[in-house]
């Protein structure tokens, strides 16, 4: 392995991460100096933490680009290759949606796995756990969101293969979210809506975008420009449904336990 090229790659990523953080630093210092005019408490600790975040994120991205992204993208291409799906090199005029089983499974599993590793979701789960005084478990939330992403990506790949219009799925998803919102426990709703947005950042987007573009380029009759997009939309919609659903299920089972307890008391 060439150490020099790696160091150059890493410093490029580090500079890019610093550039991401720059507007935040400018904004916060500007506000502190010009508007708030107060010293920041625990400044040294904050700076050390900030440096950890930048270096950590840069190492994380460099590692992903070195190891997992090339392999994941390659696999997305290989799995959507007609030669793999139909077992021959002969061109197929029409896509048979039943032949793409491995794609749906790959979409679901890669969606689940990348969401578990998503740093933004780790942050939100940490905060939710802290704010709810431990009632919302970090792993519980992350797994529920990851299942939502898995279902979303899997359905999204099915949409690309079958060529059905995107907005129908989104509309149906919205209707489900609205109905769930009426019945779900009120204190979970904000967190559920938020979990839609946090799922898709550094880890999920590159792999999922590669899957979408590779798939729409290889399925006969699809145009990558029009059909390649939309997977990220699926990945941001379905976690809302699973988080609301999980909260409803918990509420329902708690109510049932209470009810049976009451009946037991009556019997005694």
């Amino acid at each position: 392995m060439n150490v020099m090229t790696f160091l150059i790659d890493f410093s490029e990523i580090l500079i890019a991460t610093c550039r991401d953080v720059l507007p935040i630093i400018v904004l916060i210092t500007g506000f502190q100096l010009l508007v708030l005019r107060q010293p920041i408490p625990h400044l040294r600790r904050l700076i050390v933490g900030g440096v950890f975040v930048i270096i950590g994120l840069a190492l994380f991205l460099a590692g992903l680009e070195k190891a997992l992204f090339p392999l994941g993208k390659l696999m997305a291409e290989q799995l959507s290759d007609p030669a793999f799906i139909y077992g021959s090199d002969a061109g197929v005029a029409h896509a048979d949606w039943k032949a793409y089983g491995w794609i749906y499974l790959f979409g679901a599993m890669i969606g689940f796995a990348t969401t578990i590793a998503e740093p933004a979701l780790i942050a939100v789960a940490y905060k939710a756990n802290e704010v709810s005084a431990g009632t919302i478990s970090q792993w519980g939330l992350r797994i529920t969101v990851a299942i939502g992403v898995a279902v979303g990506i899997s359905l999204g790949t099915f949409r690309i293969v079958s060529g059905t219009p995107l907005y129908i799925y989104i509309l149906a998803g919205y209707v489900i979210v609205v109905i769930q919102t009426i019945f779900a426990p009120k204190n979970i709703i904000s967190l559920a809506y938020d979990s839609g947005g946090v799922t898709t950042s550094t880890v999920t987007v590159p792999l999922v975008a590669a899957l979408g573009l590779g798939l729409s380029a290889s399925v006969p009759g699809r145009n990558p420009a029009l059909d390649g997009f939309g997977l990220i939309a699926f990945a941001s919609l379905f976690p809302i449904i699973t988080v609301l659903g999980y909260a409803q299920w918990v509420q329902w089972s708690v109510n049932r336990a209470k009810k049976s307890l009451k009946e037991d008391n009556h019997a005694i």
Partner: protein
Amino acid sequence: MTRNKMTRMLSPVFLVALKKLKNAFSDLLPIILVIAFFQLVVLRQPLPQLGEIIFGTILVIIGLSLFVQGLEMGLFPIGETMAHALARKGSVFWLLFFSFALGFSTTVAEPALIAVSQEAADIAMQGNLINSDEVSQKNYALGLRLSVAFSVGIAILIGVLRILRGWPLHYLIIGGYVIVMLLTTIAPIEIIGIAYDAGGVTTSTITVPLVAALGVGLASVIKGRSPLVDGFGLIAFASLMPIIFVMGYGLIVFG
């Protein structure tokens, strides 16, 4: 016996670091398993460049543990400190200004957004929606980027205003959904997929913790607000608003 001795010898800092590394490893384990399964069982190919993959995985694990440590030490406290200081200052104008600036400035330079808007310009050109010269393509991509950044700024602003006023989140979000669906019926088909995806790509890994800490911090200092019910929801706005603005941009430019 030796194990006990060893545990005692390890300093607490080292133990904490070890625990963070272990957590990061379990965060990453699903990806490793999925890739290994598909590579070895389904595609039946050996893993190429195993050395690089292992090296990269170690980097990812160290990076993720550093990031989580930095979250607890830096990003969360900064977001909360800003929320507290701004709430104590008591000026709604500066609070809303800060919110807008935070949303706008973190989005406008987002690499994912730059990539997506360039791709969108290519698609618009292929569909003959804009003139196929470099200038109009650049203008289109820049306009798209600015409208997304503006929409995220507005989203954080509305979200913070909601926390101040105590408006229920679901009415605003469902109202947003209705607008999205209505715009979908009239927006040009070339922009719909990009618009839906734009909602997902705008919230970066550094913005999310900061915005979450800001919301929770505000909700915990303002009387009558619950951090759980009112503190979350900013990210939901930040993922919904760009969809509306990008479709609106498409309508204005192509319309």
